[in-house]
């Protein structure tokens, strides 16, 4: 809400407060000032002038020659606007004047007639948007005044963001009331007084739906003349962010801003029939609203209707058919209280958020309608020359809403939440300043006026006490909890992340969605777990319409993104949830959403330098990464076995088994996927369930290093190609028994002279005993049994022992 401090001064005396201070006070009360705008005329040498004569230009049809005066000698000014006549008071830019934006005005000849300066429009003066005609002042403004000196044009506007619980502050009176509470001063509310005529209202009011309409007040004003509203009102409305339209319409906006009660003016003669009914819309009913949009209504909409049809969307927007126009003379002023959820529903359903709906959906004081209707009638009769009828129609459908709420407030509540110091005198003082009734000592009986619908419970009053006392006037104290910190799995997850960073992988964080096109790239079928997709009900874009079932599309997206920016060596990992279309195993009602760790790398990996050739990534890279991780994470009992799965290289991917249970896949991404992703070379990836990796486990146990010499030797085996190196290592290792300290494959060879389907594996073994130097008999025996064990799994020792 935009608050002009000039206008605000009508309701509260804040001398000599500075705008900055007022802004700070409002902020301390919870009304954020989004912007402080200084308004000041940026023109000079522009004065008010009376038009004495208007004559046709001798040589041009569309412009006229005017004689204007500031009180002295009349001068000639040529003008192209037609919205005024002799007698009007206008803004005259004298020769030498500067207009808004810097245009300089001189004396010049226009088609043979010398013009002394010009007559200005609002837009030329930077006062508004209207460039159709010139700015015409009210007759009360005398000629010869320096326009830049008009007090109303120098103003400060505070743009307030009012929280949804405070509809009462969405008005000038409401803002004044807040400041009055802070400064301990009084505020003023308008008390309408105006001449009345005795006549029966023409329009009867029926409220059919008390659930939607608490109260409906109508007032009729006859004999109005719709024209431009006075300069002061236009200036105030503009400063408050409203575009002036005509006096009657401007008055409705003025009263809305002043009191916070939205009102609507109907052209009484355009209403069909002699009655208004508040009812739910009929199925199939239509209404063209003031913005020209044809709205299809449903029975969830509440309408103000005449005998024939809906004429307004309750509390939201009026209808075009009964709109006040230049020819309107009879006006019906509506001031009503609407049910907040009903208005919220309508404004959302019709995507129609107006000043009125913004207030009604939060709750407008049901005591306001008669005051607001009177205020509007006062202004209409004063500014549009109408006569207001003395008889007012006031239908109260919900008496209960008009009764103030009482709350029994125990002082203990304040002390419990706010700390010591909130005794009866302080609490009573604070509550009274907030215009709440406070009676008694403890409990204090608090009477809440109807303009504070947000105050229903003791805790609501606690907040009010704190707010007015000042949130920043409380001492600081730091309580300590009982501890707990991170759980085992949280600590182990951190270890995992640090290990991955240490191995050269960078952490990425992706949005948790995947696109249809990305699913196509990977090409999994319906049987695949990855096909257990959950779709969003209300996605904003295609990109965010399907929840990810795997981390890999996101990681591939990262590789592509970097590739497209010229970075081909990408090594990234992500820790996060995937979402699967099946029930959560522990939590009821929500889908399964396991945490995963995924990684992906392209190009080469490892340290680089002058004369250092790095290895391009391949299956062995990802397996090495896993082995390092398993060591860092203290995970034993794992095994890799070949796997064929959609999106993975059919011969270069492995399933990881941890204690015999599958936890994920690692390997090379299928070359077709790589091609479709417009990448090249080998791309490695891994995706594992996080839980089994970070679960608590048996801790590793210390082995004292032997002080005796090692026995180190190499063995080369010839074996069928499909014999897993792991199988050979464990077979020979088992045979060596406790003596085995380490075993490492240092060469793998295929081709001549081995023949098809054969390979050779060279392994470096270290044997050592904890308590003695191994004898040649012992080592000889070990070697023989290792060779024997190798033979048992199909591997022949090459050469002699």
């Amino acid at each position, binding site marked *: 809400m935009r608050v002009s401090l000039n206008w605000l001064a009508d309701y509260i005396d804040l001398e000599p407060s500075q705008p900055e201070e007022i802004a700070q006070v409002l902020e*301390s009360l*919870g009304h*954020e000032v989004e912007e402080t705008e200084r308004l000041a005329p940026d023109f000079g040498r522009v004065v008010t002038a009376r038009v004495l004569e208007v004559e046709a230009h001798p040589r041009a049809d569309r412009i006229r020659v005017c004689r204007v005066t500031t009180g002295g000698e009349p001068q000639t000014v040529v003008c192209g606007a037609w919205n005024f006549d002799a007698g009007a008071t206008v803004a005259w830019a004298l020769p030498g004047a500067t207009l808004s934006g810097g245009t300089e005005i001189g004396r010049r000849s226009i088609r043979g007639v010398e013009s002394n300066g010009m007559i200005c429009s609002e837009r030329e003066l930077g006062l508004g948007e209207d460039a159709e005609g010139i700015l015409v002042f009210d007759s009360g403004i005398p000629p010869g005044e320096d326009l830049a000196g008009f007090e109303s044009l120098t103003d400060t506007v505070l743009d307030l963001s009012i*929280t949804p619980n*405070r509809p009462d502050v969405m008005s000038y009176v409401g803002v004044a009331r807040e400041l009055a509470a802070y400064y301990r001063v009084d505020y003023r509310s308008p008390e309408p007084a105006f001449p009345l005529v005795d006549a029966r209202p023409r329009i009867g009011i029926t409220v059919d739906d008390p659930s939607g309409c608490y109260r409906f007040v109508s007032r009729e004003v006859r004999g109005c003349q719709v024209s431009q509203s006075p300069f002061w009102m236009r200036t105030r409305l503009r400063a408050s962010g409203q575009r002036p339209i005509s006096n009657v319409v401007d008055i409705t906006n003025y009263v809305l801003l002043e009191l916070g009660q939205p009102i609507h003016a109907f052209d009484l003669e355009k209403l069909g029939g002699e009655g208004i009914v508040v009812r739910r819309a009929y199925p199939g009913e239509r209404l063209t609203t003031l913005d020209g949009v044809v709205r299809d209504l449903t029975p969830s909409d509440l309408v103000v209707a005449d005998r024939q049809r809906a004429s307004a969307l309750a509390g939201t927007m009026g209808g075009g058919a009964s709109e006040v126009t230049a020819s309107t003379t009879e006006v019906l002023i509506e001031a009503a209280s609407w049910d907040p959820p009903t208005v*919220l529903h309508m404004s*959302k359903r019709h995507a129609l958020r107006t000043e009125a709906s913004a207030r009604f959906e939060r709750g407008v004081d049901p005591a306001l309608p008669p005051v607001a209707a009177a205020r509007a009638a006062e202004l209409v009769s004063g500014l549009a020359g109408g006569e207001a009828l003395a008889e007012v129609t006031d239908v109260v459908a919900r008496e209960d809403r008009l009764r103030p709420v009482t709350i029994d407030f125990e002082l203990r509540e304040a002390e*419990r939440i*706010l700390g010591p110091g909130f005794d009866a005198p302080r609490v009573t003082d604070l509550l009274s300043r907030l215009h709440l009734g406070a009676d008694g000592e403890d409990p204090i009986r608090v009477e809440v006026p109807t303009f504070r619908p947000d105050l229903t419970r003791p*805790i609501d009053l606690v*907040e009010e006490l*704190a*707010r007015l006392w000042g*949130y*920043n006037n*409380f001492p*600081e104290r730091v*309580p*300590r*909890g009982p501890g*707990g*910190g*991170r759980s085992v799995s*949280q600590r182990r997850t*951190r270890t995992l*992340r640090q290990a991955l*960073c240490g191995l*050269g992988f*960078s*952490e*990425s*964080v*992706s*949005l*948790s*969605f995947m696109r249809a096109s990305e699913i196509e790239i990977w090409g999994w079928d319906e049987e695949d777990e990855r096909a257990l997709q*959950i*779709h*969003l009900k*209300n*996605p*904003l*874009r295609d990109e965010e319409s399907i929840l990810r079932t795997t981390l890999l599309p996101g990681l591939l997206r*990262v590789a592509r*993104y*970097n590739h497209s*920016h010229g*970075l081909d060596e990408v090594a990234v*990992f992500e820790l996060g949830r995937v*979402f699967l279309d099946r029930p*959560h195993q522990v*939590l009821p*009602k*929500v*889908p399964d*959403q396991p945490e995963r760790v995924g990684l992906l790398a392209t190009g080469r990996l*490892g*340290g*680089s330098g*002058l004369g250092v050739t790095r290895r391009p990534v391949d299956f062995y890279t990802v397996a090495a990464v896993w082995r390092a991780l398993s060591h860092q994470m203290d995970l034993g009992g794992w095994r890799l076995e070949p796997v064929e799965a959609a999106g993975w290289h059919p011969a270069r991917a492995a399933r990881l088994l941890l204690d015999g249970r599958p936890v994920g896949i690692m390997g090379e991404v299928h070359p077709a996927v790589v091609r479709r992703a417009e990448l090249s070379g080998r791309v490695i990836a891994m995706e594992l369930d996080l839980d089994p990796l970070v679960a608590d486990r048996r801790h590793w146990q210390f082995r004292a290093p032997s002080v005796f010499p090692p026995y180190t030797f190499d063995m080369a085996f010839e074996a069928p190609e499909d014999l897993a190196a792991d199988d050979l290592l464990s077979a020979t290792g088992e045979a060596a028994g406790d003596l085995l300290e380490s075993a490492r494959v240092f060469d793998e060879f295929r081709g001549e002279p081995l023949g098809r389907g054969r390979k050779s594996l060279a392994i470096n073994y270290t044997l050592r005993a904890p308590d003695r130097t191994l004898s040649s008999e012992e080592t000889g025996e070990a070697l023989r049994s290792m060779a024997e064990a190798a033979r048992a799994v199909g591997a022949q020792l090459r050469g002699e022992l």
Partner: protein
Amino acid sequence: MESLDALLEKAPTLVKGTSTLDELSEAEAELLGRRSVVAELQRGIGRLPPEERPAVGRAIQEARRTLGNLIETRRRRLETESERLMLASDRVDVSLAALEYQEGYTHLITSTIEEVCDIFIGLGYRVVGGPEAESGIYNFDALNTPPTHPSRLESDTLYLDWGDPADEILLRTHTSPMQARYMEKHDPPVYVVVPGKVFRADTPDATHSPVFHQIEGLAVDENLTFSDLRGTLAYFAREFFGSERRIRLLPNFFPFTEPSAEMHASCFSCEGGGQCRVCGGVGWIELLGCGMVDPNVFEWVGYDPSQVSGFAFGMGVERIAQVRHGVSPLRHFFDNDLRVLSQFR
């Protein structure tokens, strides 16, 4: 014996005159070698009368020791010199990065979360997580957010086409559902922080993302007041943004806290006024929303609101990281551009 004295006299000049290890070896041969004066005297010792032999023998030993020390000293010196020359020729360009290890970088979101959690662990809090696909019950109902509340509309919340529509399965809009989930399962005192992903129906732009991260804090105990909230947040601000920070609280509105506030910290980059990148010249930085836990939340989880009180706060991880490091626009958190990731530390 005169020859021995003469030898000892000329020896220092001879030894110190050598400039290489080879020259020193020659000098050594001359002074102590097989043909040296010392060697000859040694060989002649048997021809001397027995009573003279000990004295001569001692003199020879003395001379040998003196000469040996002389040579050894010189040798060490020449060796040092020769090594110095050798090392000098092994000079590197210290400015040349001839080798670089491949570093991996922790994401700024993670490191920020870890740091904030560490701060609260220091105050005795526990770190807990929770489901990202949530039900409307925990995301809204439990948190005093009625079915008519605007935040429940499809324009704000991403709903999933999953499960019983009555359960309103959605992507959690804040980390606050864990308040209810945790209190439901644990008795007070409760001191927890909940970091995690949250979702909103927002199209990505400079300041919005459909996914971002929050850290929720919740403390419930017997005597917690507004002062505990203030003190805790001030402590956090000082730990995270620097020991000079002050905070201010401005009243605000959230359904699940009352009193509710927005917390600002004094700017770490300026004294207020001027063109500050961080605070825009206001002198204060808006950091997070907070408040005292609403009694309705306590009732929902089965706590007695007349017996316990507590406070909660929720901060945007990207927001506080952005404030501290200037990362902007928001998409840089999620594009995972290596040129950005490699700036994180």
